[in-house]
């Protein structure tokens, strides 16, 4: 449905996007993930034809966005980061305008009513957009993207500014839309993407750094280590030594005393070996009560931080100083 080939975008010296390629099939929800300024919005703006790429091409349903812009755009519903609303119109006027702008041929009354019900803006249908709260504006922006029922939906941070209840509603809505639409949504909130996406694409500094299902990302691309965090009651030095003697243990770290006589240890084990049973055996033999044992798997969050690396923190620091520098 969406074919992105070798996309690059240069702003002078600055490479906003370099050689990004991916393709998305029908009826999938793709989460586009990355720290601020990673190139998410740039990619989306290029796919929707708002800006052009310096290199590379985008095809929607086989229509190249440069050769057949109108055919490609007809198939896309786009909700930019800032919804393109006209605040001096009512929701009704605005949606009717978008309906006419997109030259939609579906029965107007019915189509608009359905969309309003879907994104829950029926109760503000006759209100001025200027008087709507951020959450409602965001949903009007979503409604605007849905008009004409385009097969591809591009949503740039669709849940920003919504309250927790609305966030869940919108996520469910996106999940449902994903059943018969191709959806790309961007976010820098991991759990959100994890909750709705069938597939995750991670970008950092304009480069595509990972592409796969949430499961693949969590389980692949790592060295296969496993980690256990255990609380054991017993003399810490002996315990440490005993733990190190278990077959397959690579390292043991003592996190110190957490309860009287109880220390917490982190055990790194080689992949493929289950440390829990031998651990129990040793503890039982020495009568060291195990007070807790958790295996800490690499979460998507760890994957994300690992992939985007230390640049994540330094990038954000740079941004903050830029902001205080008074730059717009």
């Amino acid at each position: 449905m969406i074919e992105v080939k070798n996309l690059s975008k240069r702003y002078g010296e600055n490479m906003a996007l370099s050689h990004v390629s991916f393709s998305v099939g029908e009826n999938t929800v793709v989460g586009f993930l990355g720290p601020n300024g990673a190139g998410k919005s740039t990619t989306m703006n290029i796919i929707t034809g708002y800006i052009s790429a310096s290199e590379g091409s985008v095809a929607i349903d086989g229509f190249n966005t440069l050769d057949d812009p109108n055919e490609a755009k007809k198939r896309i519903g786009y909700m930019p980061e800032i919804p393109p609303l006209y605040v001096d119109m009512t929701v009704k006027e605005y949606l009717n305008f978008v309906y006419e702008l997109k030259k939609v041929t579906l029965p107007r009354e019915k189509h608009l009513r359905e969309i309003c019900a879907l994104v829950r803006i029926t109760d503000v249908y006759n209100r001025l957009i200027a008087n709507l709260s951020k959450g409602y504006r965001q949903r009007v922006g979503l409604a605007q993207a849905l008009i004409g029922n385009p097969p591809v939906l591009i949503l740039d941070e669709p849940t920003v500014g919504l309250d927790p209840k609305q966030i869940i509603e919108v996520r469910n809505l996106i999940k449902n839309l994903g059943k018969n639409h191709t959806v790309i949504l961007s976010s820098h909130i991991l759990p959100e993407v994890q909750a709705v996406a069938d597939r995750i694409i991670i970008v950092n500094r304009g480069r595509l750094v990972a592409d796969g299902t949430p499961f693949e990302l969590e389980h692949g691309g790592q060295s296969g280590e496993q980690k256990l965090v255990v609380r054991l009651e017993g003399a810490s030095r002996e315990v440490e030594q005993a733990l190190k003697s278990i077959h397959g243990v690579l390292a043991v770290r003592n996190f110190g005393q957490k309860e009287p006589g109880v220390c917490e240890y982190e055990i790194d084990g080689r992949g493929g070996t289950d440390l829990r049973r031998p651990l129990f055996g040793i503890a039982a033999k020495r009568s060291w009560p195990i007070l807790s044992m958790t295996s800490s798997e690499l979460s998507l969050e760890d994957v994300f931080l690992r992939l985007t690396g230390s640049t994540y923190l330094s990038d954000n620091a740079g941004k903050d100083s830029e902001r205080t520098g008074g730059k717009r």
Partner: protein
Amino acid sequence: MKAIAKKELKAYFLSPIGYVFTGVMLLLFGFFYTQVLLYQSSDYIPDVYSSIFTWIMMILLPIITMRTFSEEIRTKSDQGLLTAPVGVLSIVFGKFLAAFLTFAAALTASLVPAVIITFFSAPDWPKILCTFLGSLLCGAALIAIGNFISSLTQSQIVAAIGTFGITMMLLLVGQLSSSISNTALQNLVNWISFDSRYQPFTKGIFNLSSVVFFLSVVAVFAFLTARKLESRRWG
């Protein structure tokens, strides 16, 4: 194009801009029509358009063109337009049409006093209508220029003042021509002077070259505006 023109027309008359524009324009016309009545001759009606008109264009047209694109760029609503399945030219012409219709409506309303005078006198209607047509064409050209300037900036104030400056230059530059000794320069000044293109209409002369000139200005600036809007794709 129709959807955009409709939306823009609505925007003019949902905000005070459309009313202020029409109201002030008719007020100024009313003032000059009063003078016609004082002279007690309907022959002066075309003069209303020739003398006052340049001032109306200068001061009032920037008001309706300043927001056309600046506002969209500032609020980023242009993203909605440019990602919709419509060509850039139809966006530009939609906006142009709305501004032009607003202007044309106000200008048509300004003929009401002339109609009333017809009941008491016999004004030279062909001449008045020729003047009216000239005003429409000249206004259309200036609106196209104003829209272009509006597409250059996110600030409505900058767009308004810029348009005001350019419009003033185009309308008044002709006054310099008599004091220019270099004939080539003088010809150039006369060529771009909107006023010297417009004045023949007020004398009842339908000047085809002026019609072509004004329509060409509309076309050229519509084209430039479309290029400007597209330029961000190449930036």
